[in-house]
């Protein structure tokens, strides 16, 4: 067992840090508020373009798609450094983490040629058309319908809580083509298709993050379907396993805690009782970090991950919460905007237990798969 980094990994981390230092503008902390603002999305396009030019956007992708087939550690080190400063890749992290890899695995050649190169250049933004008013954690009960007609699929329905929908080019859409779990299919739908209406929902996460998306007689060609009809559940399983540990949220939580401690020290307010609370938050951050490393280690060794991913996710929720609570209690002025990065963490932290599979779903997974407790009756 060895917790140290290789020379190459250390060098790579330094390279990423230098890139970030050279490419984040002076007013970055002002831009890095709510994760879905148009200002941040616009900046992310420039930033991701530069990352792509440096070979730092998708190093873990295969060579044929512009990557260097780097091991999972490299992508994770990259993501850690990005999250540490507030994730300047904005919503494009999804392209890098899972949309690109999923299209490589399940997409048609035409879909791959259309969508993967712009992702690899840092030019595209996607949204995830999963949740509906009646289908959140119970995703399989979604109702948005895609009916095959002569000219393609006619899609009708509504999505909700959709991040980035206001600025996204394409939607990774789940719609029903039959009944039950095996009756759900995935469609890659350009957001400028006639019949799509996006309405922003004001939220505590900040401007532009969550939306309602309405599909009224939206027609897409059959070629817009990803994989086979009814294959969505299989594909979503692969998506979630990439999504659950692909986001090193602990890195931003840890950086936020460190920033908060510095501020408290400067003002003479880092007293013993405050130190103990900081210790609790710090321990939670380090535990979440080690869980993530364990999963990346398994991934690097091609060992399948099970409920460990849920343990990692729940641990991350814990650390986000403890850091956010620490900041609110000891630096309340941060929610008035005095320290933009602390505010940015707060807004990201509050969704940690809700986005990409609620914390309670993770607890269910742990209870069933890890502890092997009897299942709940349904």
């Amino acid at each position, binding site marked *: 067992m060895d917790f140290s980094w290789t020379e190459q990994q250390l060098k790579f981390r330094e390279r990423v840090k230098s890139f970030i230092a050279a490419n984040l503008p002076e007013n970055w902390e002002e831009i890095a508020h709510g994760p879905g603002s148009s200002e941040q999305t616009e900046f992310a396009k420039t930033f991701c373009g530069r990352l792509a030019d440096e070979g730092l956007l998708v190093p873990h992708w295969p060579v044929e798609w512009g990557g260097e087939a780097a091991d999972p550690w490299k992508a994770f080190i990259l993501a850690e450094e990005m999250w540490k400063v507030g994730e300047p890749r904005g919503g494009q992290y999804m392209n890098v983490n899972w949309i690109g890899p999923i299209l490589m695995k399940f997409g048609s050649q035409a879909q791959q040629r259309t969508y993967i190169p712009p992702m690899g250049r840092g030019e595209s933004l996607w949204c995830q058309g999963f949740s509906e008013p009646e289908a959140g954690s119970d995703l399989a009960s979604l109702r948005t319908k895609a009916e095959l007609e002569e000219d393609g699929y006619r899609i009708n329905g509504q999505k909700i809580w959709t991040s980035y929908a206001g600025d996204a080019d394409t939607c990774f859409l789940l719609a029903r083509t039959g009944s039950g779990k095996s009756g759900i299919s995935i469609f890659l739908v350009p957001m400028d298709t006639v019949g799509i209406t996006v309405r922003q929902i004001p939220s505590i996460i900040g401007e532009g993050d969550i939306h309602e998306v309405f599909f009224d007689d939206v027609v897409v060609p059959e070629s817009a379907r990803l994989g086979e009809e009814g294959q969505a559940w299989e594909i979503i399983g692969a998506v979630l396993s990439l999504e659950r540990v692909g986001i090193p949220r602990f890195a931003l939580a840890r950086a936020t805690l460190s920033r908060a401690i510095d501020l408290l020290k400067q003002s003479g307010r880092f007293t013993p009782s405050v130190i103990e609370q900081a210790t609790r938050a710090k321990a939670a951050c380090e535990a979440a970090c080690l869980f993530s490393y364990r999963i990346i280690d398994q991934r690097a060794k091609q060992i399948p991950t099970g409920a460990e991913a849920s343990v990692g996710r729940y641990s991350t929720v814990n650390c986000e919460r403890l850091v956010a609570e620490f900041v609110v209690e000891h630096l309340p002025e941060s929610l008035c905007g005095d320290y933009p990065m602390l505010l940015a963490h707060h807004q990201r932290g509050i969704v940690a237990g809700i986005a990409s599979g609620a914390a309670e779903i993770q607890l269910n997974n742990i209870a069933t798969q890890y*502890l092997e407790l009897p299942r709940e009756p349904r």
Partner: protein
Amino acid sequence: MDLMLNKDQAAVQEAIEAIALDFSSSPSDFHGFALVSPELDKVLLENGFFEIATIPELGPVSAAVTVERLARLPYTAETALSMMLSHVLGEVERPIAVVDGLRPGRFVREAKTVIVVDDDRIGLCHPGPSEVEDRPDALYAYPMANLVSLDGVYWLSDAERDRIKTWLRIALANEMAGLLQGAIDATVAHLSIRKQFGRPLGAFQALRHRLAECTVLSEGVRWLAVKAAWSGDAGDAALAAYHAQDAATRVIYDVHQMSGAMGMTLEMDLHLWTYRMKALLSELGGRGGQAQAVGQHVFGV
């Protein structure tokens, strides 16, 4: 980074699993607190387990994994300090105990070497039978005793003190990780069997979620503790010990609550883990003491 055990460490783990099998259930006629096994101690001694931290291919990580595994057993023996401090203390006789001044500690009667923490200093002593007072009525699930005076203690240098304190914290965290897991395992067994309202308790979401949360805490302790054993870093050690005592405070309550009246009995064995954890809660200054060390070594206060 390689978070799997190396070949030698995996072999040790396999060996300890085989030993653990013989000590995995308590005798049916035992209804007490300190279920000490001299046989377990003997087997570990005969097979060289107390020296594994000093063997380069194995090191403190292997010792940590072993301590954690043994702490999951219903039987106890003085393992954590002997296994995790052997490479720090050098040639001292075991068993080893740690006490806070004249307060009671675990295995003090049996100990050939007692580490004494007294405010900001650390010393060693080798008490004779008359220099130790037994605490037979202790509720903790370890044999408890205290020194009657500090007269025989020889105090160590600041550098030795700091090093020993770090490894005491690492030992505590790894032992606590096993105790947490032992308590959770016992609770899983109870929730899987005990039925109410026509179904196993473990099928109720209120309990499933609660125990899953305990598991996340317990796993966090395990990883922080093994990382600290790998690094030997004072900050890592203090963080691991803090998280261990903090997690235990919550888990002890939760597992007893979930085990209901059964957990109150001395038949279920749950107390063997929870009342060992309680003994560890106050060691090395408790959470306040660990936080002070984190302040010094991690936050630079």
